[in-house]
């Protein structure tokens, strides 16, 4: 058990690192390129590509983190109006189905990455093998699938609360002032 808790912590830290620094890298690249163009009349040839790589990595590696925090965008209107019991059932079954879908997507996108690898396509500016960038897609789906299984599990184990994610109790049962951070977008 201890091993899994440590592993969970490590994965969490890695995901947070990826999300935070992807945004910072994008900012540095875009700002750097804009300034370089304005001041030196010189475009950084790698800026767009590095930013795009950061976007792909952050988007897909963020799936499991957003799942953990219960922050995936959903049409929760009916859910929010439902009584505890219904919410509890929904929050147990849906994550399982989502996990199944994500594992399927992980499988197909892994095949896709394999295709790209075999085709030998390289990125246009850095000329690195394109498949390396795309590995984030199946990996992100897979990690997301694992996290949604955990979301299901915590709802099975902990009977007294509804969990939107392992780190997020359902706001419908919470003191609502706490969650303004969670309604960011």
């Amino acid at each position: 058990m201890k091993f899994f808790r440590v592993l969970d912590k490590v994965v969490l830290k890695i995901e947070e690192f990826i999300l935070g620094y992807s945004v910072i890298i994008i900012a540095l690249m875009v700002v750097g390129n804009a300034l370089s163009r304005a001041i030196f009349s010189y475009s950084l040839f790698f800026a767009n590509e590095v930013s795009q790589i950061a976007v792909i990595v952050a988007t897909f590696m963020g799936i499991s983190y957003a799942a953990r925090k219960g922050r995936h965008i959903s049409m929760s209107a009916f859910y929010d109006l439902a009584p505890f019991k219904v919410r509890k059932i929904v929050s147990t079954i849906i994550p399982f189905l989502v996990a199944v879908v994500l594992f399927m997507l992980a499988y197909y996108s892994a095949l896709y990455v394999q295709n790209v690898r075999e085709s030998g396509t390289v990125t246009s500016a850095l000329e690195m093998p394109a498949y390396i960038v795309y590995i984030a897609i199946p990996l992100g789906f897979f990690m997301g699938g694992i996290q949604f299984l955990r979301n299901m599990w915590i709802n099975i184990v902990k009977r007294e609360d509804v969990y939107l994610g392992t780190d997020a109790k359902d706001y419908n049962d919470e003191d609502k002032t706490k969650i303004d951070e969670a309604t960011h977008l």
Partner: protein
Amino acid sequence: MVATLLTIMVVLLLLNFPMMIPLMVAPIIVVFLYFPTMDPMILMKQFSTGIEAYVLLAVPLFIFAADIMTAGKTSRRLLDFIGSFIGHIRGGYAVTTAASCTLFGAISGSTQATVVAIGKPMRERLLKIGYKDSTAMALIINSSDVALLVPPSIGMIMYGLVSGTSVGDLFIAGIIPGIIVFLSFAIFSIIYAKVTNIPLATKATWSERLDFTKKAILPLGFPIIIIGGIYIGLFSPTEAAGISVLYAFVLEVIIYRSIHIKELPEIAKSTGLVTSAVFVLVAGGQAFTWVISFARIPQMITETVLGSDPTAIYVLIMVTIFFFVGCMFVDPIVVILVLTPIFYPAAMDAGVDPIHLGVVITFQAALGSATPPFGVDIFTASAVFNKPYLEVIKGTPPYIVMMVIISVLIIYFEELSLMLL
């Protein structure tokens, strides 16, 4: 096939699936059922194509800039400044709320962020001076809509992405409709205050005003940089977003020192989380667009909905209805990603200006997300203010009426959108 798609989307959405699931699964199921010989790899590729567009880089950057400024004290500075000048007039606090939402909307690309940043401090002040809570909340929710209309706007970036329209132009085109919304809310607030006899606030002294102005002058540079920079061609929308991050950084970290540089990765992490949650939708949306284009569904649907040779106005009215209803139920980003590729070709055939169409669509997204039963901003407000749903929606009808009227104006007079271009 349309029925299959629709059923999958609606059922999965109602069951509270994360929206990325229907967007990603529906195309795959359609391929399996209707194009069994096709290689589903094509859809995997679309996931990355969807988020590779350069203009999308503006999304995390604008969110990051707004996050930095929210972590600092920018929103308070803005409303102190505005309040010190107009707070004392009849309905002054309400007008201040509308104005602050508009100004903060010119920093932030999302309505919900505006509800949080301006709504929280302004609601306290409105209650203190004697406004009913439902009135205060309705004002806040609806004024926050302006954030989607004035640049930067995530809704416009999404429309620009899907339709291939210039985001820079869309940004500029949204300014006047945004100002019209603000002005009508301001006038309504003044009349409302007169009728219900809201007491007057004390007038700020000129030294207070000077003090608040000094504190707000740098944050005020923000919209000037974004809008001005795009307008005179200094930079593209994405670069403008980058510059706004730089500006927020200089302001909050270097000048005001309200944030320590070590806190930035933490702020960036929350930006990254939101970015990921939005971009998985864009990725799925692209696969969805691909499959409906491949199957020629837009042509089928528009034939049914619009007839064979519709006029521009008729198309715009149908677009308005579909987007408004869609945004009442589902997140505006998803609605824009799914419905734009369906209606855009028909609108172009009918001679609608693509920028005008973008403003109309964004306007409906703003209106729909503040409209009961399921507008997302209502739920945000309910959560942020810790108030029951019914209390939150009680005051909204007058605003919806105003928005519908403005909506008609924007549809009929395309100059309102296009004259600044």
